[in-house]
């Protein structure tokens, strides 16, 4: 028996009220993949992410997590799936009234039976993993934006999730930090054998880390291309996709 894919989306339509953002999305994220969701600004990339992690209910269609319809599950089962997903929000979304160590420790305190000493070690280790060793006692407002983002990644990794979601991981980072973030994402996939979904429009990242991708089109409001980013560059893919991937350089 083959294990079901971690995420499968079938005929998903996303809407705010009567305003449809994207319709009829169907795709599958396979285990161990770094799956890129790309598209122009405002085409619904982040909204799709909110649907995948269960913050928003679909207007139509289903989101299958490990082969089960996410919204047909019981609350307890849904919580289990949520706990198995680490999410890096666009601006970090660290809890501003807690130190970095407390930010990482909160899910550990809530969902594991580790001793305080172990939790402390684990927090220190996760921070070291993202290159922030020794920053346990800083508050989010006391560190730079790039460090905040890395700290948020350490929090996302707290529970050793099988699924990782990144919303614009390199937005607001300098090229070197952004490259480090990409390396970290690849490293996490290989070392933890995690499945990773990345929402981004950063071309360098798309080509560096993506193993599979979908392109959400803002005009036709659906997926117009699907495949590995390098394959999408060839002439067979729609012009809008090629223009996106070449910063407008492609010709019909």
């Amino acid at each position, binding site marked *: 028996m083959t294990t079901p894919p971690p995420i499968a989306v079938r005929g998903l339509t996303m809407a705010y009220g009567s305003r449809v953002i994207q319709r009829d999305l169907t795709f599958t994220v396979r285990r161990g993949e770094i799956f890129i969701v790309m598209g122009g600004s405002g085409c619904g990339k982040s909204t799709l992410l909110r649907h995948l992690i269960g913050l928003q209910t679909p207007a139509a269609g289903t989101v299958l997590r490990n082969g089960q319809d996410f919204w047909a599950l019981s609350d307890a089962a849904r919580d289990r799936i949520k706990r198995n997903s680490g999410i890096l929000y666009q601006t970090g979304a660290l*809890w*501003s*009234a807690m130190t970095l160590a407390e930010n990482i420790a909160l899910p550990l305190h809530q969902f*594991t*039976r*580790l001793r305080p000493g*172990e939790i402390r*070690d*684990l927090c220190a*280790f*996760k921070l*070291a*993993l993202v*290159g*922030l*060793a*020794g*920053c346990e006692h*800083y*508050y*989010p*407002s*006391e*560190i730079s934006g790039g*460090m905040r983002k890395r700290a948020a990644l350490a929090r996302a*990794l707290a529970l*050793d999730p099988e699924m990782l979601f990144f919303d614009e991981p390199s937005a607001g980072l300098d090229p070197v930090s952004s490259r480090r973030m990409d390396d*970290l994402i690849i*490293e996490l996939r*290989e*070392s*933890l*054998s995690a499945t990773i979904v990345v929402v981004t429009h950063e071309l360098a990242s798309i080509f560096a880390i993506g193993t599979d991708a979908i392109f959400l089109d803002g005009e036709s409001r659906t997926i117009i291309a699907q495949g590995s980013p390098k394959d999408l560059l060839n002439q067979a893919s729609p012009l809008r996709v090629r223009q996106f991937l070449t910063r407008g350089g492609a010709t019909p």
Partner: protein
Amino acid sequence: MTQSLPAIKPGTATAELDYDAASQTGVLHLRGDWRQKARRPEPGSPVLPLAMGSLRFDCADLTGWDSTLLIYLHELRRHCHYRSLAVAWDTLPAGANRLLKLASGSSTTPQAMPTPTWSWLGKVGLRSLEAWGRVVDVLTFVGELVLACLKFLFGRARLRWSDLALEMVKAGPQALAIVALIGFLMGLILAFIGAIPLKWFGAEVYVASLIGIGILRLMGAVMTGVVMAGRTGAAYAAELGSMQANEEIDALESMGIPPMEFLVLPRFLALTAMLPLLGLFGDLVGVLGGLVVGVFYLDLTFMQFWQQLMQTTKLADLFVGLFTCWVFGMLIAVCGCLRGIQCGRSSEAVGQATTSAVVSSIVCMVIATAAITVVTVALKI
């Protein structure tokens, strides 16, 4: 050297050292399920013999691992590094080895601020300077506000009239219901309590004087002030505080729009204009509450109550009350906006700003009431 090891119980993880004294090499057998839920050895165990020169791992029986194995190995790595022990890290699972390397890679640690230690006298001085700094902050804020008001009088303040109108609606008409409720009940309570001693003397009719002087001069203003401090003062602190936390105030300032004129001034003007009006309304409703008690509980007629009220209550009482309201409006607006502007950059700081806005405006109002009462009595107003 490799003898067969005992089978491991499910749900446990073990780390056993095989030490060969002749070659001074050790093999650490990591076995079982190294995950959060499993029973597993403490970091730092087993103790490595001092003479040991090299160490490698045997992970043949390792059935699963997560971060708990990594913290164990991280500790081991620090220890081995300290003892300059040669360790064959590549005998670990490839993923674990890479993550360990990543964790011991370079880290950006912000420079820790040196914290000097102070003597007892130094601490007293430090505290005094801090307290003086807070006084200076308040004075600066009030001074800037006065300048902003002057600019407004000359029509040069940078504020939007729509903001001012909106703030007036929020601080005025939208507060009518709660002021009416509190004012009416206050009149009712005052009349009931006053009726007890007045009945001893058969002087029930004087309840009208009590209500007239008590509500118009003092209680109407105080109750309106307290309600507005909790309602509007807190809202100002929370609004401006979260704007400060989100760098929205910095954004205004960097565009050359002074937050004092754009944010504080409309709120200050709205509240100082609206509070006397709300106070007047509160007075009316309060007297109505007293009238209800007078007519239905003390069996006075409406005319008796009215005449007694008119004979003993002066117009000055009403004006003192309204003046008090006007002062309250300024105090609440200043406390709310000041705490909001001073707010830090975290969600907790917004809460503190709100709390301290309400507390300080109530304290200021009580002090102001005391001062106004003493002065008016001394001046025989």
